[in-house]
């Protein structure tokens, strides 16, 4: 299992990853998935991770990347003026 950049989240991350891999291979890839069953675990993991990212100042970098993407989408999806 891969490590998390925040060691304090490793446990909850491992639980989520295990759930995801099981759901992905047994349900999703067989086209029998109806919902994301691992969502509750993901929310726990995400809470831990968000806190860690904020502490390390990485969340700003991610926000900038998201803003960049929105700009790119707006630019590339503009109807071309002909």
């Amino acid at each position, binding site marked *: 299992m*891969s490590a998390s950049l925040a060691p304090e*989240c490793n446990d909850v991350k491992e639980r989520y990853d295990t759930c*995801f891999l099981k759901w992905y291979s047994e349900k999703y890839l067989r086209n029998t998935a*109806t*919902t994301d069953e691992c969502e509750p675990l993901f929310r726990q993991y995400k809470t831990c991770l968000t806190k860690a990212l904020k502490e390390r100042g990485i969340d700003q970098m*991610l926000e900038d990347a998201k803003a960049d993407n929105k700009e790119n989408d707006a630019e590339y999806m503009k109807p071309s003026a002909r």
Partner: protein
Amino acid sequence: MVKFYSNTYSYDYNFPAVSLAYFLRYPNPYSRHVASTDTIERYFDPDTQRLTTVRLHVKQSRLPPAVLKVLPKSAVGSDENGRAQSFILEKSVVDVRQGWMETESKNLDWNNVLSVIERHTFRRPEEGLGTADHRTDVEVSVTLKSRIGEQLRKKRQRWGDQATASSVAGAGGEEEPVVKQGWFSSWSSGAVRAAVESISLQRTERSQPKAQL
């Protein structure tokens, strides 16, 4: 200036196996430089059965000595051994119904030196059942762009050309003011950009075949 690399090949494994392998890429003994992988978003659309994932990887590696020599010290955030850390954002969409997967990975930092965008498309072959079931077709494309000196150039344009502008042979014959009191006396920033992109393209070409899962 941008450098571009692309390749197509196929794996002798079916699409579900390949898409699962993609999520299990790390850790592996050939990629010890990847220090961590975190899933930061995951969305399952029950109508289209598409799974969208965003992950963040942290890579620790050494800058190629060739690049290290060419870069200004201000752009390099590494220790004296040239070891540096970089964040990679990976977005992927899997469509199990239509049998394709598209991914895009790019670096979040170091963009002023080099930006690398790597895209993969994995697809179940179109041919009828039988032989096609155990193959997955792959298209890879890598875009490399260096922006060294761009900030400096923009600043100079704003203040008017105080530096003597002279055309420099190299980097596609662009006209550029020579960087005065520069970090590297004879190279213009355009030449540095081209050098960084070329070195990165060579490394990409060498490492892509090895990176085929």
